[in-house]
């Protein structure tokens, strides 16, 4: 009798795949040129310095090469991408004021419900614009700023100008140059000295228009001794044309501050998700990245942490799930640039049905980063041999007082573990489900309960048969 393979079913994408038809008020023509960039700038009422930055980004984009490493990106034709789509909604702090289609979409995604129960503030972006933004009174009382990026550019211009694309500079790679040229939307958060925000803030990014790009910019500044948990969610309905996401996240964590940045990314499988994220962490500060990557056709995403102050710390905990037609190339970068810094990178991946999971990382320990510690752990679970799981770490150590450890494991569900659990009374399916949930648990336990449930639902495993 032929053996059946362990199967991991596609999760139900119904709530994500609903396409809203008449929600676009205006969109730019396809492609990218100076006229389009100037038009976006005009839409945003940019100050001159921002227009200059956009034009510089465009010039760089036009001469920079595509990456010579990683997944093949030849399918991406920038002449077919619409870089700006304005929905037929004005930004509001009342869900009822949104057009019914857009409101229903966010209702289905559970954003208003989450806002009521477990968040201190919500920003919701639809295509290229933030359509909803609201913060609770306690945040205002503590002088915490949480607003859309365009408002921040005008209301907090000095702060934004001093930080915008200073951590991730536009000359690093072509998609940052593109981002500089056409960014639109995103969130700005400023947490004053000593303020500890008790409940998370969330920004949700929804890309509805076919063939469009989303280029939101997120800028968070946590002043000395402050604390914040920021959650980012993303989704899109499936189209038969490629969509592009090239966002940019810059995080400034000052002395003794702590920032947790959680992402649950569930783009549709026609999405090129080429996002860039970086944190700069000062003395005794902490950045924690929690990342769940489920959707997209191709993802290239490697949050990076620059540990520039003594005792700075970073933690990266990530899970990726790649199915048919997906290449999920994720990981983390850490630069230890000061003494007594520490970093932990833990990555888990599951690949199935021809999906390709790549864990890519770099750790750099500078000569002055004495007595630093670094641990990188990567585990990959393959559900069939149509899939791939590759691990590509690099460690560059330049002093003699630091300790670095790296471990990686690749394989399928352990038959011994299944057998053990079955001797304890579980069925084979229950045993496998338990093993897989245990495999992803280090990530889900880092999320608030509601989001852990969401992540578990996304993983939604249906296991049957025997180990093949």
């Amino acid at each position, binding site marked *: 009798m032929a053996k059946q393979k362990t199967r991991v079913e596609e999760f139900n994408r119904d709530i994500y795949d609903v396409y809203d038809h008449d929600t676009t008020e205006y969109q730019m023509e396809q492609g990218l040129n100076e006229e389009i960039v100037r038009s976006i700038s005009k839409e945003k009422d940019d100050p001159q310095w921002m227009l200059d930055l956009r034009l510089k980004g465009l010039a760089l984009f036009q001469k920079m090469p595509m990456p010579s490493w*990683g997944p093949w990106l030849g399918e991406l034709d920038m002449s077919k991408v619409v870089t700006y789509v304005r929905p037929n909604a004005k930004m509001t702090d009342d869900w009822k004021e949104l057009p019914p289609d857009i409101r229903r979409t966010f209702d289905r995604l559970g954003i208003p419900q989450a806002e009521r129960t477990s968040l201190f503030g919500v920003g919701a972006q639809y295509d290229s614009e933030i359509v909803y933004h609201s913060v609770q009174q306690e945040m205002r009382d503590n002088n915490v700023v949480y607003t859309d990026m365009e408002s921040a550019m005008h209301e907090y211009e000095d702060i934004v100008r001093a930080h915008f694309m200073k951590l991730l500079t536009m000359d690093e790679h072509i998609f940052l140059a593109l981002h500089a040229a056409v960014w639109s939307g995103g969130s700005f958060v400023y947490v004053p000295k000593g303020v500890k925000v008790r409940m998370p803030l969330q920004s949700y990014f929804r890309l509805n228009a076919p063939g469009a790009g989303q280029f939101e910019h997120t800028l968070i500044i946590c002043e000395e001794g402050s604390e914040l948990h920021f959650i980012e969610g993303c989704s899109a309905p499936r189209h038969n044309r490629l969509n592009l996401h090239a966002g940019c996240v810059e995080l400034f964590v000052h002395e003794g501050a702590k920032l947790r940045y959680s992402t649950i990314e569930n783009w549709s499988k026609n999405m090129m998700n080429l996002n860039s994220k970086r944190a700069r962490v000062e003395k005794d500060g902490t950045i924690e990245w929690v990342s769940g990557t489920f959707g997209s056709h191709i993802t290239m995403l490697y949050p990076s942490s620059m540990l520039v102050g003594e005792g700075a710390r970073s933690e990266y905990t990530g899970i990726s799930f790649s199915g048919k037609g997906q290449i999920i190339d994720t990981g983390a970068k850490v630069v230890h640039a000061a003494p007594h810094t520490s970093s932990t990178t833990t990555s888990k991946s599951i690949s199935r049905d021809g999906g390709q999971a790549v864990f890519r990382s770099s750790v750099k320990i500078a000569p002055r980063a004495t007595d630093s510690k670094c641990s990188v752990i990567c585990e990959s679970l393959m559900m069939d041999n149509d899939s791939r799981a590759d691990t590509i770490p*690099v460690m560059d*150590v*330049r002093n*003699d007082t*630091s300790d*670095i450890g790296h471990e*990686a494991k690749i394989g*399928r569900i352990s038959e011994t573990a299944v057998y053990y659990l079955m001797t304890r009374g579980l069925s084979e399916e229950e045993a496998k489900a338990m093993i897989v949930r245990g495999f992803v648990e280090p990530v889900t336990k880092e999320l608030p309960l509601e989001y852990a449930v969401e992540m578990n639902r996304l993983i939604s495993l249906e296991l049957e048969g025997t180990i093949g």
Partner: protein
Amino acid sequence: MHIRLASLNRLPVRTWSWLSVNESALEIPSLGAMYHGDPFADVPVGVTIRSDVSDVDFRSSVPPRFHAAEGNLHEVVDDTARFVEQRASYRAVLEIGEDVSVEAPMTATFDLGAGEQLFDRIHVRALRGSNAKIVFRYLGGRPSADDVVPCHGGFVSFEIEEGASLTFIQIQALCDRAVHLDAIDAVVAREGKFEVLLSEIGGQEAMASCNVELLGKSAESTVNGLYLAGNDSVRDLNYRIGFAKPETIGLIRVRGALNGKARKTMKSTIDFIRGASKSQGREEESVLVLGDEVVNVSTPLLLCGEDDVSGEHATSIGRPNSEKLYYLMSRGFTEKQARILLVEASMSTMLDMIPDTDGRARVLAALREVVEA
């Protein structure tokens, strides 16, 4: 006039360019006199050596790569092999006869004179059921009176036939200004075994690769790497085991110590190809860093296109354990002696593989020199 080779020791899968690990470059001094010597002292019964390599079509026995993951894969065997094929001044085919079991290790010594260059192209065929141990020693080579530095470029390929077992030990102990460029490439058939020890203890710049393809069911290979580097020397090493058939077993095990302003890049790859079910692969690197100006880069790749395998990697980079040092010093050892003992202990498995006392002594002397620098 120098020859610059710009694309050596290529990583099987590219990563970020700014890390400078995708490929390495080397300048070959081109002015030296060629080495001429007869490296094999004794040839045991059942082994033949001939200098005509024209019938060796090694490339045809290596199947095309099976990766499906990315469009920008490198070939592992790269410019080193091509460069040496063109320039070889010493060529030999060494054949161990069918079912021949050679008790004593067979040793070849290449002892370079002042400013000499050696480019050797050697093919080793271990026929079905044979069993042997081969030692290659690359020694000597001081700069010439007009300051031409010695240089070695080698390409040694192996065919391990069904059920054959071959152990290959290479001791590269050239003078500290020499340039060393080396490629080892092996294919192992069903139930064949290939164990390698590559000790890179000499040379200003040593750039070496070892690529093993396990092409038969239950084939096995262990690639041991031992490197030592002090002053401003460079070690750039690229090891890979490809698992192409079921129930194959492979281990890459590397130990090293670095001091002074030494720079080391270690690339190692465990590569499971679809169809290699029930295979097991492991790579491990342990590095002792003894100087605060050392540059130590490790790139351990684990590539997997088959689900029914077990693949693991572990790297540890750090200074000698302070508790162990303290214990040894409390027993009367000086700090230097204690450090030497700890480094020796970390490399003892590999030191034990070296069959001759001269070889072991050379490695131990180099080890002490690096620790005491």
